[in-house]
């Protein structure tokens, strides 16, 4: 066993800290996966990680690669536990952060309150100096007021400073000057400028991005330092990488600069896992679906590429504008619909499922911890889809009396039978998830029938068959590591940085030169960053995208560029690529000028991800994996006696027809009547959807 063969992923969640440990036996090539879980240990989160490594008996010195994901950043924001932050901005614009964009999402509400800015007005200070949209200086920067500002911040015990100046996406010089001067005047205060995170226009969004990054910076710094030091003290001398929201991993040093990039690392690793699984199996088009306890998240992977967006919002919903973050984040639709989502009837008799969730505590009624409102999990139990005698992998006795009582009460309100109520809950939950899947596919011009559904998380296998049938998706894959799939995705990740830049020019004969120059500059920026962090820029490969629109439009369509970029010869082909994408999404083309509005460079490098080895079949008979039979309600297909399989005993090459249920420690897979399940060479369950 050599050190290089041990890869570990740790994931700090709000409630639990998870560990997945992947070791490859050098002699046999056999791969083993171990998982462990401890309670998350705020505020010293790294303590939980260390505890976990000890608990799992992982020798620190043997770990070659450690990927780490954390919800510490998003939690600090949603719980408002970040640093006291000050903002420095351009004269005349300190109120931008408070004015935001002026929208009122629920327009019937006359007493709507805007989200409160993360920096109060008296800590938003201004400096004279002005750029224009070409990045030309109109008014020189005047730093003479800065000492006063810093002094004022010190009096108010400000811990972090954000800098965002107008048009810094086009020219960062003034921001750099402010940054340097702040560091000189107040070396003890952490500071971040907007251009370090994004080079895109829209001053409110960029200002808020800088502010939120500053807000979490001291926490992230402390956290990453402690983690790094504790691991080193424990004898770890492998490479530590931090999961990012763009589906890549990055170094501790780089993450420390702009920690906001960690914000959605959890969902990103799951989506990346689905993309990697697709690559491994030769499936380029994947719909990834992660059904957890409180939410379901989905994302579309086209031609092996995850979609990374640069205009992401937190806390945004029908009743709240939320806060924008212009960091590269995987394009996800998330809905409040998971195993713990509560079914409820409104004042006027309509049934809803979620978004309120019973969470981990009290959890579904079946947990017997005081939950009284039926959840999706309770409905699945009542319908026999989840085994009441093997609840949570046999670690818990399901309180079926409680479940039945709660369903009966709901059924009573709706004037239907308990069984119908349970089916109704599952159907409405499924419908909500179908809507989410449509949002990432049909609404963007993709036909779900061209995709394979990769479903994971605790509830993925339970609902995937029904969702696929409804969307006419032909094939579903439940990954072998479904329950720890995010961790699996982390150990499969590459080093990756996404650079977005607002860049304006017409797609005409001058475009090739301009674009070439701009991309060369971006690439050299990327190489420079890697070199300065002691990484070998030679390992990087680049992928170039550009964003196009018809003149006078606002929203742009991103198109991948050929390897040789935009040239005089391929101008028409590039326009065609844009128009094909545009027409797919919007149904028409226009005979007008096409403009370039943005560049997107992806810099990627492999740093030793897991090489998956095929599992060997022992020749076990399928009948040996049969646990028993049980009556199961398949909702619209009817009620059938299903064969129960023990997931742990299934092996490559096995195949069987629905109605069937696969029970494994972390997940249940429902195979509907008419569908066919088989186990592939890596232990994934592949369900071919058929009709009853």
């Amino acid at each position, binding site marked *: 066993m050599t050190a290089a063969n041990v890869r570990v992923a740790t994931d700090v969640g709000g409630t639990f800290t998870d560990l997945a440990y992947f070791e490859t036996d050098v002699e046999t090539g056999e791969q083993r996966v171990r998982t462990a879980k401890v309670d998350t240990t705020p505020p010293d989160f790294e303590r939980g990680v260390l505890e976990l490594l000890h608990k799992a008996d992982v020798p620190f010195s043997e770990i070659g690669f450690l990927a780490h994901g954390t919800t510490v950043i998003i939690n600090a924001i949603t719980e408002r536990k970040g640093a006291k932050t000050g903002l420095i901005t351009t*004269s*005349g*614009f*300190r*109120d*931008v952060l*408070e*004015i*935001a964009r*002026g*929208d*009122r999402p*629920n*327009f*019937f*509400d*006359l*007493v*709507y*309150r*805007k989200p409160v800015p993360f920096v109060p*007005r*008296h800590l938003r200070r201004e400096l004279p100096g002005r750029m*224009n*949209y070409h990045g030309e200086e109109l008014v020189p920067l005047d730093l003479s007021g800065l000492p006063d500002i810093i002094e004022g911040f010190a009096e108010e015990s400000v811990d972090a400073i954000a800098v965002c100046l*107008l*048009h810094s996406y086009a020219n960062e010089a003034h921001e750099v000057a402010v940054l340097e001067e702040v560091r000189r005047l107040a070396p003890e205060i952490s500071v971040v400028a907007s251009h370090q995170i994004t080079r895109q*226009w*829209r*001053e*409110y*969004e960029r200002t808020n991005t800088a502010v939120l990054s500053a807000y979490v910076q001291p926490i992230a710094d402390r956290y990453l330092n402690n983690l790094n030091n504790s691991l080193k003290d424990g004898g770890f001398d492998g490479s530590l990488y931090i999961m990012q929201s763009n589906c890549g991993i990055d170094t501790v040093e780089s993450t420390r600069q702009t920690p906001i990039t960690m914000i959605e690392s959890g969902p990103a690793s799951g989506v990346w896992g689905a993309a990697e699984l697709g690559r491994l199996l030769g499936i380029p088009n994947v719909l990834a679906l992660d059904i957890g306890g409180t939410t379901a998240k989905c994302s579309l992977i086209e031609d092996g590429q995850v979609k990374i967006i640069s205009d992401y919002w937190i806390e945004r919903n*029908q009743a709240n504008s939320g806060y924008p973050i212009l960091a590269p984040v995987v394009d996800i639709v998330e809905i409040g619909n998971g195993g713990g989502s509560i079914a409820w009837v409104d*004042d*006027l008799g*309509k*049934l809803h499922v979620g978004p309120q969730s019973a969470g981990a505590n009290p959890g579904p009624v079946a947990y017997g911890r005081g939950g009284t409102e039926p959840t999706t999990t309770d409905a699945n139990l009542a319908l026999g889809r989840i085994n009441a005698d093997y609840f949570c992998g046999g670690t818990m006795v399901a309180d079926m009396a409680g479940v039945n009582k709660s369903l009966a009460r709901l059924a009573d309100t*709706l004037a239907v039978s308990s069984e*119908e109520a349970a089916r*109704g809950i599952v159907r*409405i939950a499924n*419908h909500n998830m179908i*809507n989410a899947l*449509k949002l990432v596919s049909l*609404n963007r011009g993709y036909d779900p029938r061209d995709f394979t559904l990769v479903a994971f998380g605790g509830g993925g296998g339970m609902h995937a068959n029904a969702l696929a049938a*409804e969307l006419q998706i032909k094939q579903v894959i439940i990954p072998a590591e479904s329950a720890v799939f995010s961790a699996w995705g982390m150990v499969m990740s590459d080093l990756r940085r996404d650079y977005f830049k607002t860049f304006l020019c017409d797609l005409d004969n001058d475009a090739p030169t301009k674009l070439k120059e701009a991309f060369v500059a971006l690439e050299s920026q990327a190489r420079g960053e890697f070199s300065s962090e002691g990484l070998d820029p030679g390992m990087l490969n680049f992928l170039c995208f550009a964003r196009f629109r*018809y003149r*006078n*439009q*606002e*929203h742009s369509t991103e198109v991948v560029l050929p390897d040789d970029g935009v040239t005089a010869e391929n101008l028409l082909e590039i326009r065609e690529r844009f128009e094909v994408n545009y027409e797919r*999404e*919007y*149904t*028409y083309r226009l005979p*007008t000028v096409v403009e370039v509005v943005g560049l997107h460079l992806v810099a990627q490098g492999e740093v030793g991800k897991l090489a998956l080895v095929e599992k060997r079949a022992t020749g076990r008979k399928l009948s040996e994996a049969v646990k028993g039979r049980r009556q199961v309600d398949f909702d*619209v*297909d009817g009620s059938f006696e299903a064969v129960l399989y023990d997931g742990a005993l299934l092996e490559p090459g096995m195949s069987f027809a629905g109605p069937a249920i696969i029970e494994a420690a972390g997940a249940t897979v429902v195979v509907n009547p008419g569908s066919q399940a088989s186990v592939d060479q890596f232990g994934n369950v592949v369900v071919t959807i058929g*009709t*009853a």
Partner: protein
Amino acid sequence: MSAYPLSEDQSAVEFDPFTIEIIQNSLQAICDEMFVAMRKTAMSSIIYEVLDMGTAVVDPHGNLASAGAGIPLFVAGLDKAAAFVIQKCAEQGIVIEPGDVFATNDPYNGGVTHLNDVAFVMPVFVDGEIVAWAADIAHWNDVGGMVPGSMATTATEIYQEGLRLPGVKIVARGEPNEPLIEVMKVNSRMPDFLEGDMWAGIAAVRVGARRLEEVANKYGVKTFNEAISRYLDYGERMTRKALVDLPKGRFTHSEEQDSGLVYACVIEIREDEFIVDVRNNPLDPGPHNLSRDASLLAAQLLLKAVTDPGPTCNGGNFRPLTFLTQKGTVFDPEEPAAQGFYYEAVLRLYDLLWRCLANELPHLMPAGHYASMCATVLGGTHPDTGRPYAFVEPELGGWGGSIDSDGTNGMFSGFHGVTFNCPAEINEARNGLLVDRLELNPDLGGEGRHRGGKGIRMDYRIRAEEGFMTSFFTRSKFPPWGLVGGNDGSPNYVEVRRVDGSVERHSSVTQLKLFRDDVVRIVTGNGGGYGDPHERPRESVLDDIKNGYLTEERAQAVYGFNTTTR
């Protein structure tokens, strides 16, 4: 595909409540999908950024089955457009066929608002039967008429306000009506924008119609119809349930407008009926009239706000509403009265009704807000590209304080919703001017136990040699109203600060000439205060001073604040 147990035959007997629920949820999702499709493809910033647009699903009888996002004005306007087309086709024997798209922008012919707002309605056919209509509407930059942008403060007849589309087929059986489109383009000063925005609107109704067809096919027409019918009943129950809890009685209010006209209303709340009577009103001699349908919108939105301000909205919500108007008045004008600035008139009406009720329901409603779109049009030649530019935008303003909190700063008016302002960085690139500042309005006013929110002060500096400005602000003479003892807010106005140092103040002006380095300063009102200022907690006053919302002198004068005592 799973076989659903609800075949047509079974559903005739009994409908599965969960299928009904799923269809109802789908209606909302379809509206949202149409909204996204339209927003992303529109040419004009007023559509894609300001989101002066809306989408809806309408049932075959012209009832609003589900409303999408957008601005509230449009949400309940599209059923009226579809209802007009349905009636017109029936009366004139026009055959409605699959693939047809009808266009209307004429308030005298189903268009509801003004000629700039072009609505598309598309029938959804299943088995030869119309099961629903997909509809959308958006503000187009220029549809002809006597001034650029089509809205003229001096218009007295609708003929001066642009080309009228009286509910005609712009697409027939899937084929664009090219001659009509040619007529439309040649009538517009901005034909490229017109064509782009037109296709955005057509694409969106097509998306909606396709989805509706899929849903109706999947679950069967009878079940689909039943789902819509029950959804409307659900909307009605929502309103009736809330009506029970409102105070009953007959309330009146009248108020002088900036124009000198006096508008009046009577609202009567009964156990099972909500009556809004605006019969006793004058006619506006200019373009500030609004069609009866548009006036009805103001009453509908107010009813929704005081009964169930949640996002679910359909025609059923408004069944308990009785709306009374008098032909030949500002709220129900006769052809050819001009209506270009309908949006300001509808906001005036909304504010009038709001104030009438707020006096009775101060626990439910905030004090007055800046209550004007403060529409501003700036145009000229872009100094960098040499291309002409013109844009119209509504402005942000302050909202009134309410029973439990201060008013909101810098938010779009009560007739906007999912509307976004244009970022300065984009504005400067697109329109070739400079935004010198965007900040909260420091003017006095709006003090109270809960103070009004701040309006904005925004400076546009002209970079081109020449340009022009048109503005139409109301509440420029009479500021936003305070409630239960709170102070009135501050007025809306626009200043032109010339290079020579002179300052002109305007509220309503057409095609005012501007020159390089002139600054157009837009100032929008601070909202009205709520409650006696002397009841404002000391720490709130201190906080206001610290944050620069208030000076110490003003705090002493209005709040009785004294720095030395506690």
